[in-house]
């Protein structure tokens, strides 16, 4: 179902882009190179790039929903991402480190981390000091 939805969104977005009804910076009228495009040193067609960006955002939105993010919050969260952040998350959200600060470790690991804590290499158990 998700794929169908995505395909539907893509078609819709491409149509929207083609109609030129997207809020495009005024720079587009003279064809000025935008700051984001220049930062990515990206001379590829800006139209094509924008479609990629939008697909990446649709992808991130889907992944966040699948990870239990509240549907009412997800749009604003994706909108706040820059193009490159959205791409990064679309490609590797699963593998990205997520700051949580809790560990569920096996006994063997517990002992190792205890030792590395005492050696000053880790900071898992503050009671070691």
């Amino acid at each position, binding site marked *: 179902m998700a794929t169908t939805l995505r395909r539907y969104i893509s078609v819709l977005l491409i149509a929207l882009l083609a109609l030129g009804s997207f809020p495009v910076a005024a720079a587009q009228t003279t064809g000025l190179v935008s700051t984001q495009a220049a930062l990515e040193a990206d001379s590829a067609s800006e139209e094509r790039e924008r479609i990629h960006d939008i697909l990446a955002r649709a992808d991130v939105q889907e992944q966040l929903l699948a990870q239990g993010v509240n549907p009412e919050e997800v749009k604003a969260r994706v909108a706040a991402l820059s193009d490159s952040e959205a791409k990064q998350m679309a490609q590797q959200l699963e593998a990205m480190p997520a700051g949580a*600060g809790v560990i569920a470790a096996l006994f063997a690991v517990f002992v190792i981390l205890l030792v590395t804590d005492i050696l000053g290499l880790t900071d898992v158990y503050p009671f070691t000091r």
Partner: protein
Amino acid sequence: MYIRLLAKQMRHTDLNDARSAGILLCFIVSILLSGCASRPALLESTYQTLPSHVELNDVPFHPQVKYQCGPATLAMVLNHQGVDASVERLIPQVFIPGRDGSVQPEMLATARRYERIAFPIRGTLDSLLTHLAGDDPVVVMQNLSLPAWPMWHYAVAIGYDLPNETLILRSGEIERHMLSFSRFDATWARTERWGFVIAPPGEVPAGISPKRAMDAISAYEALHGANAALPSWKALTQRQPNNAMGFFALSNAYYALNQVDDARETLIQATNIDPELGVAWLNLGLLYLAQERLAKAEQTINKAAQLPGPWQERAASLLKTL
């Protein structure tokens, strides 16, 4: 809290587990003893220029609940700047339930939603201390554990003591977590020393790399528009007067606000600072073209077409149409 979790698991362990643990332990100890945590070397200039003791006592403390160190750290730095942001509100904005945590891009993006720009800092202990000395608390990401069993964690660095070589953090449930430089650096190095400071529009903290400053302001501009980002682009050109790309970006913001003359003058500054910046020549040519100053346009686009780089081709093909 996680200690209790471990204790529960320990009860389930059998002898076999204990034996393999013993073997592993011997192995690890023998490796580690050969390379104990060493003191990270600070630059001589750090000792000479920074105060020996800094602690930003006015950074509020929000203890972390469950896995939510991301929302807690963001609330601390936002509140420190007078932004009204609560942990409860931040949780649905930055926490990912399926990952039991918050990811780096969303930490930066969420600051943006509160009209603050998040600037990733240079990944050195020197630069971390310099930001603290400059009154900016720094959100740092650490892996408190080993790479094989990561324990990703966000904390807010609020101070340091140079003679004692300790860092002071608001971390987890601890309001004043004191860590030796070496232990902190070991945990910080595992995230490639990732951290960020936040600033309101119109301020660019000292010591941010040109590329990261550009990315941060550009992302803010994409969300809030050229008008909101203009003060930051101006601040960037003042903070980094040799960063031609900063002038390029400022010119685009001017143009988006229909200040065409300012846009043109700023682009000329960009080409003065870096005559090799093809994209600035190209935009300058396009501006002249829009103003129907054809001779100027041709001359400028010709310049862009001669400079190797990603924009050369576009400039060359544009030149042919003139």
